[in-house]
C-alpha cells in the first residue's frame, strides 16, 4: 500500500525523527503528506504551479513547527491540511475572478477512449467544483476526493462534525445541479 494511504504510521514519531536529523523520516513524511496536499490545493486553486507553491509552503511550516510539536495534538497531516486550507483561502481572496483554468492531471494507463472520457469527467467535476462556494468546495474535496473522515475534516476546517456534514451535503446537491445538464456530454449512457 502506498505510504500516503497508510493511516497506521505514527506521523508524530516520524516528525520527532525529522527533528533528530533523520532524513529518511523527512522523506517518508513528504511522501505521505505532500501528494495529498498537492491534489487538494490543485483542486482548490485550479492551478498546479500555485498548488505546488502552497504544498511547499505548508510542508515548510511543518518542518519549522517540528521542534515544538506537542504529542497528543492533531496528526501532522491534519495540521498541514489546515495550513494548506488557509493558504488556499488567502490566494483565492487575492484573486479577482475565479480562475477556471484547471491543471492537466497525469492519468493512469487505459484505453485511449476511456482515458479521454475519464479525463473529461474529471475536468467537468473540477469545473463544477470551481463554481461551489469555497467552504463547500473544501468539504467536498476533503470528504469525497481525499477520503478523509468527517471528524478529520472538522479538525481541519475548525468546525463541528454536523457543520461538515451539512456543508458536504449542500456541496453535493449543488454539484449535482451544476452537472445536471452535462450528463450526455460526460458519456454515462456509453458506460451503462
Amino acid at each position: 500500500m502506498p505510504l500516503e494511504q497508510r493511516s497506521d504510521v505514527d506521523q508524530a514519531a516520524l516528525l520527532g525523527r525529522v527533528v533528530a536529523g533523520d532524513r529518511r523520516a523527512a522523506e517518508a513524511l513528504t511522501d505521505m503528506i505532500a501528494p495529498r496536499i498537492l491534489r487538494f490545493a490543485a483542486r482548490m486553486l485550479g492551478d498546479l504551479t500555485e498548488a505546488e507553491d502552497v504544498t511547499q509552503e505548508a510542508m515548510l511550516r511543518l518542518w519549522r513547527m517540528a521542534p515544538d510539536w506537542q504529542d497528543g495534538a492533531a496528526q501532522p497531516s491534519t495540521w498541514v491540511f489546515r495550513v494548506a486550507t488557509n493558504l488556499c483561502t488567502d490566494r483565492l481572496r487575492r484573486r479577482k475572478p475565479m480562475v477556471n483554468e484547471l491543471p492537466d492531471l497525469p492519468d493512469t494507463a487505459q484505453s485511449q477512449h476511456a482515458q479521454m472520457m475519464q479525463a473529461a469527467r474529471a475536468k467537468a467535476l473540477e469545473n463544477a467544483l470551481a463554481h461551489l462556494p469555497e467552504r463547500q468546495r473544501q468539504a467536498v474535496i476533503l470528504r469525497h476526493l481525499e477520503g478523509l473522515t468527517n471528524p478529520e475534516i472538522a479538525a481541519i476546517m475548525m468546525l463541528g462534525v454536523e457543520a461538515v456534514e451539512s456543508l458536504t451535503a449542500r456541496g453535493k446537491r449543488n454539484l449535482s445541479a451544476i452537472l445536471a445538464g452535462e450528463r450526455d456530454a460526460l458519456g454515462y449512457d456509453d458506460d451503462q
Partner: protein
Amino acid sequence: MHWGMMMTSDKNDMSDQLSQLFDDARACKPGLSPHLRARILADADACNAGLAPQRQRFAPWRNWFSGWAVPGLAGGAMVAVAGFWIGVAMPMPVVALDAPDWMQNALGYMDLIALQLIGVDDPLLMEF
C-alpha cells in the same frame, strides 16, 4: 410513472453519476514531481541544519529556564543580597545606637555645674 418514484430515481441517478465522477477524479491523481519533492526535502534539510540544531543546542537551557528554576534562582538571589546587606553593609551598627561622645560630655558638664548649683551631689537625693 409516479412523480415521487421518478424524483427518487432521478436523485439516485445523480448520486450514482456523482459517485462515478468522484471515482474518476480520484483516479486522476497529480503525483508529486521529483522537483517539488526535492524542494520540500531541501527545506527540511535547511530547517534541520539551521534552526533545529540551534534550537537543540539551546534547548536544555531553554527548558531549564522555562521551568521552576527561574523563580527558585530569583528567590535565592534575593535572600543572598538581603543577607549580605544585613551582615556587611548595615548602614548603622548597633554600637552607634549608644549616645555619642559630645552628648555624654554634655551630660557630664550638666552633672558638674547644675547639680552643684542646686546643692545636691547626688541626683538621687533630689527627692522629686
